[in-house]
């Protein structure tokens, strides 16, 4: 009760101060977050649209959560800013045979609680995710059969089948090394509330849906961490996130709506940065017998009717790149000819439709999520208008994400649905995942024996040059047959304070030590 009366008293004071038109910068302590200097501390504050899911690194598939985790945990190998594989907790590696990889581990590394990092931790971490099918990342690690401890600082990772992309697997979500002794002694729940890693920053405090605070790890094995404190704030409302950046409450804000970019540029002390991402927006096309889109001329007409460049320019404020493949630059097996290009040609689209017997037009349904991706609703509406221009009457079905994903799961969309896919593996294999005839059943019903053969071979091909050729060939076929019509690669929009230097990464990770004071 005392507290309530206290609150009300102070509140009244605050109100009267407000009424008196007294606009003193209130709460200097709170504003200091963004000043980066709390008692001489170097603080970096980053705002994103959602909170991290938690600290079970094997049980989420959320890029923005991983973007935070990379500051606390290390992988065996990591990707640098150019997507090249670099040593991290492993200093070297070799393939012993088709299914065995040997890793030499870095010596003298300690977890935040002081435990030394050894081969036992690698075994514990990878076998947990490869052996528990209830974990969300299980599907990306089940290829690992076992991890053999050779000695304290050497491990053999043995896979069920040849695994050309093992290094890609081990440098992404779910590969952060966990402290086996700490977890075995204290239990998993304790780890979830007091997580421990080997990374440059260690856990300090997490207030759900508000903020996560990490502090510098002085014992870090690599270069000394650049910041004393990292604050990751969760601010779901776009307008609020932008306002925090404008007032200096945060140094970096992710997911800025295109409409606010100009305002941030014009504001004194802030600027914007756009960076490519792994996400590609596409239309998946039903090729089932009896659907109008079973005719390849209709599919081509749809592709030719859409002006990707106009979508990127008008809706995304230039934040995207038209593409005819899902394997964009920075991924293994990409096809440069199919990237940064579009086949917009409405006249030819009309001709094709006439040839296919739809001179007087045709009708189909386009389903799209609303509120899931940047400007998804507006993109779908513009596509609908563009299809209308060539005589395709598209009935637009906009769905909120959970209804969309139910329909997606039950494969009950009609002729077209719009979706954006990422690629955390940085490898072409993942981009074809749903185009195997087996997986495409009921969705696109794409069925091409040559593509199936190419994908099956490439999946286990340990010769990189050959493997790349196989994937490029597959992309050519898919670009021509159009079971999926690729639209554009999406950019991420960041609002940045002028006091820091920030270069976005293709994988959207927010590595604090790649961000520096100006």
């Amino acid at each position, binding site marked *: 009760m005392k507290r309530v009366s206290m609150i009300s008293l102070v509140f009244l004071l605050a109100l009267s101060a407000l009424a008196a038109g007294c606009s003193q910068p209130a*709460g200097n302590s709170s504003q200091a977050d963004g000043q980066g200097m709390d008692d001489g501390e170097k603080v970096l504050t980053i705002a994103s649209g959602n909170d991290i899911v938690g600290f079970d690194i094997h049980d989420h*598939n959320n890029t923005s959560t991983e973007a935070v985790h990379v500051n606390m945990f290390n992988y065996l190998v990591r990707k640098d800013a150019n997507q090249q594989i670099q040593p991290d907790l492993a200093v070297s590696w070799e393939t012993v045979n088709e299914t065995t990889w040997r890793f030499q581990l870095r010596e003298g590394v300690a977890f935040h609680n002081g435990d030394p990092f050894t081969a036992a931790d690698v075994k514990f971490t990878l076998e947990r995710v490869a052996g528990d099918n209830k974990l969300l990342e299980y*599907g990306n690690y089940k290829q690992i059969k076992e991890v053999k401890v050779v000695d304290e600082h050497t491990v053999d990772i043995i896979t069920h089948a040849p695994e050309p992309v093992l290094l890609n697997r081990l440098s992404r979500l779910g590969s952060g090394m966990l402290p086996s002794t700490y977890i075995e002694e204290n239990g998993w*729940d304790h780890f*979830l509330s007091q997580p421990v890693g080997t990374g440059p920053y260690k856990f300090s405090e997490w207030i759900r849906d*508000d903020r996560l605070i990490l502090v510098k790890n002085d014992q870090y094995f690599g270069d000394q961490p650049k910041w004393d404190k990292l604050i990751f704030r969760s601010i779901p409302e776009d307008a*609020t996130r932008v*306002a925090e950046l404008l007032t200096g409450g945060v140094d970096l804000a992710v997911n800025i709506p295109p409409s606010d970019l100009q305002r941030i540029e014009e504001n004194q002390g802030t600027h914007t940065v756009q960076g490519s991402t792994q996400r590609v927006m596409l239309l998946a096309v039903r090729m089932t017998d009896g659907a109008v889109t079973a005719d390849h001329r209709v599919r081509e007409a749809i592709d030719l009717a859409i002006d990707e460049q106009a979508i990127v320019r008008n809706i995304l404020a230039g934040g995207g790149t038209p593409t005819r493949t899902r394997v964009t630059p920075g991924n293994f097996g990409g096809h440069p000819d199919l990237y940064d290009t579009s086949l917009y040609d409405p006249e030819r689209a009309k001709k094709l439709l006439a040839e296919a017997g739809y001179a007087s037009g045709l009708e189909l349904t386009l389903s799209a999520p609303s509120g899931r991706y940047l400007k998804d609703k507006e993109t779908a509406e513009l596509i609908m208008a563009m299809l209308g221009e060539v005589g395709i009457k598209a009935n637009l079905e906009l769905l909120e994400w959970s209804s969309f994903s139910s329909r997606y799961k039950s494969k009950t969309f009609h002729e077209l649905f719009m979706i954006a896919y990422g690629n955390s593996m940085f490898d072409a294999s993942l981009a074809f995942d749903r185009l195997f005839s087996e997986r495409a059943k009921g969705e696109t019903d794409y069925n091409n024996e040559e593509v199936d053969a190419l994908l099956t071979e490439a999946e286990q091909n340990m010769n990189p040059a050959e493997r790349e050729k196989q994937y490029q060939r597959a992309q050519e076929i898919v670009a021509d047959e159009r079971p999926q019509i690729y639209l554009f690669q999406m950019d991420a929009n960041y609002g940045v304070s002028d006091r820091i230097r920030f270069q976005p990464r293709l994988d959207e990770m927010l590595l604090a030590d790649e961000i520096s004071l100006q």
Partner: protein
Amino acid sequence: MKRYLVKALLQLVPVMFLITLIVFVLVHVTGDPVDLMLADTATDEDRRILTQALGLDQPLHVQYVRFMSNLLQGDFGQSFRYDQPALPIVLERLPASFELAIASMIVATVISIPLGILSATKRNSIFDLFITGGAVLGKAMPNFWLGIMLILMLSVELGAFPVSGRGSLFHLVLPALTLGTGIAAEMTRLIRSSMLEILGQEYIRTARSKGLREAIVINKHAFRNALIPVVTIMALQTSTLIGGTLITETIFSWPGMGQLVIQAVNTRDMAIVQAAVFVIALLVIASNLMADLVYRYLDPRIKYD
């Protein structure tokens, strides 16, 4: 009095039972969390495994019976998103929401009592017109818009208050103003009308004819009695408050129950939604009960038996 209380508490049981049933059915028939949880690369096999692990492959009535028997032991199930028991997560958020609710109530009271009285005593004056007009406006302004406007004006332009988050008392000002405005509007109108009614009554005329000073008449005689319906309204505003916190907490990223529920609905975190609705329902019922009791205490003419 005792009898009334016992009766009220007995009525609580079927009401809460119905609420759990309705929420359970709604949460379960409107969608499935599994596809939201799985990665794009997941196979149908992965789906089946996860569905089974969550017990969602059972028929609905079986799931409900399991849910109820756990609930009776105080277990609301596991949150999918946090992989922890749901109830503690919900309760953890109560203080933040209470803080915001109480502050908003204070804002509403501080604004509405003087304005309501002024408006009634200066009936049909320019003041009255201004205040009643303002009340309509305050009621009509959506919280969402008001919150963003306050941020733009008071934080971005003037730098007077922090934009969002919870920390110092200054962090509380904007969300409390946002949430308090609508309630203040409603209370102002109520105080005005109940004051007017009382000012027209016999005993006020008597007091005036005895030559008492107007200030004493208003403050001592009229206002006291005018407060009776206001107290009730304050308690009944709990549900408005809860609805308002959903939006307001999201705008100001205030880590309370409102934001938790919104996030839980978006991620189809069934256990959290169920636990939160249960707790909210209890709070609403309790505050209505409180309102009844206070009303009864203030106005002995009311009988419940």
